[in-house]
């Protein structure tokens, strides 16, 4: 669930208020978003992805709100790491950011095949016993 808005980094652009699909934020003073409906947060990280200022931090338990230490989050460099992972900048994708995406299907199938072989191997061993 969304855990913190870094007011000093926030530009008050209001993008997150609109971009949150579940209407978690209201606009507060100077446009800095206020977490108004935490119970509606689905921990989807979309607000972070749309925040060019890296002023939002979503904690990773979807069932329980979590108190975080804002300074620690900042020191660890966690702010904005999701957006950088997607390689989004000012709402656009960096060139080449989807050049590995084709591997999703093959890696998924490979994983499923590994599980299948492991299961067959185990059960043929049992049959041999």
């Amino acid at each position, binding site marked *: 669930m969304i855990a913190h808005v870094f007011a000093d980094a926030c530009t008050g652009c209001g993008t997150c208020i609109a971009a949150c699909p579940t209407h978690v934020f209201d606009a507060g003073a100077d446009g800095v978003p206020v977490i108004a409906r935490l119970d509606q947060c689905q921990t989807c990280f979309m607000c972070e992805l749309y925040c060019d200022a890296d002023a939002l931090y979503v904690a990773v338990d979807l069932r329980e709100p979590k108190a975080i230490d804002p300074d620690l989050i900042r020191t660890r460099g966690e702010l904005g790491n999701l957006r950088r992972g997607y390689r989004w900048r000012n709402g656009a994708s960096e*060139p080449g950011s*989807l*050049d590995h995406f084709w591997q999703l299907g093959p890696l*998924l199938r490979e*994983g*499923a095949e*590994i*599980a299948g072989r492991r299961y067959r191997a185990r059960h043929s061993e049992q049959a041999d016993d």
Partner: protein
Amino acid sequence: MTRLEEPIGIETDVLVVGGGMAACWAASAAAGAGARVTLVDKGFVGTSGVTATGGPNHWWVPPDPALRRDAIERRLATAYGLADAEWMERVIDTTWRLLPTLAAHYPFGSDGKGGTFFAGVRGPEYLRALRALATERGVRILDHHPALELLVDPDGAAAGAAGYARLTRRPWRAEAKAVILATGGCAFRSGLIGSHTNTGEGYLMGVEAGAELSGMEFSAAYSLSPAWNSTRSLPYFAARFFDAGGRELDIPPPMAGNAHWQGLAAAMLQGPVFADLVDAPAALRSTLREIQPASLTPFERRGVSLFDERFEVRLFGEGTIRGVGGLRIVDDGCQTRVPGLYAAGDAASREPVAGATSGGGAQNSAWALTSGHRAGLAAAERMRTRRDGHAPSRATGQAGLRPTSTPRPIERPALVETIQAHSIAYDRALWRNASSLADSAEQLEAVWQQISAHGHGEGLDIVASREVAAMAATARWCIAAARAREESRGMHIRVDHPHGAAPPARIATGGLDAVWTRPDQQSSQTELAA
């Protein structure tokens, strides 16, 4: 009525309800065909729904007749007699032609062989591109405008919708000549990533307006994720599973289908289940961040090393998202039984391409694209033949909006828990039998009676009131259809009827005060209520 409660008035040719991939393809198709199009979404077009957080692969078969025939035959074999080869052909062809047309807005990447990879797209970039395409075509997009009910004209045809604008806190009312429901499936608030907005209002609104549903028994679907956060499931396909004592569990592999889910669910009913990824494909370690950055975040921020440590997992209900059921379409343009009311994507029954099994992401995405596109074209065509209506339209919303008895506060969280226990809770859903289904029907009936007699909401709260009503209605239809299908078929598992019965038939369902079911003849010819 105070001035603030005066509804925002919207007039349009085609109204699209929903904001995921089916809704966007529908809106762009209708606008491209010359219609004035307004799209209203509960959330934000770009982040709403299960595609935005995902990475949909599409059914992708080159236009070679032999290849396509082969792909269709293979898929028909796993649809357990309920799919339609003609629809499959359309879906393959439309997807192949349309997806690459997004190139102006979507940064298609390499296919690893010197070409361009079109078949799979990443969710946030895909929805961002679909929003850009719709905007370029002149679609008016209204984010945070959840629809609450449909309007019908005196002939019973769809005439618009009404809802509540969340950011401005005002009701809205849209008059339209055609309405497309692309509201997604219903995951009953399981926590499945992206599904918080997928609570089934499209089904409820459609049925209130006179539409029917089909395939609702095909709703027992799950995905695996870390216990604390739902993610996409790519990392976990090769996972080994352990109980709390560290003993490895003998779980049939993902390819085993129902046995895989039953194996995991049975173990989880005994206690916590842990996974490790030591067997995962080596390349996943280096490329997962490039493919699905958000799948790593729940681990990194919790301090768990995804590929090196064991972590607790659980199953997140998918309901009719990865399940199949939805509004029953009666023609090639995705029209429901209500004239001028169309259904697309997960809001429509996906049986024409999936039959009794999920079909996996590829068929599902291709269906959403194609059904959206066709609904958009059909709605635009209908618009051309409709005179401007002068007769006043009638609002059709009932449960959660207009209680039949005294409005009074109801314990929504408790009701949602009951709804979940009889829809996505796997102890029942993966081992259905006549007596547990009869009990579920009774419990859900009590929930429904309470909501329809007393449920209501004021202001913003009306949205939540309607969501709970829609989840109750959806669960009721799922259970009714599961009771009517006295056999096991595809993802519908009846332990008291372990085999399929001949001949295969779809099951239609609907009704509000009283739920009904009937075997469906699957005729593809047009049949309309009015």
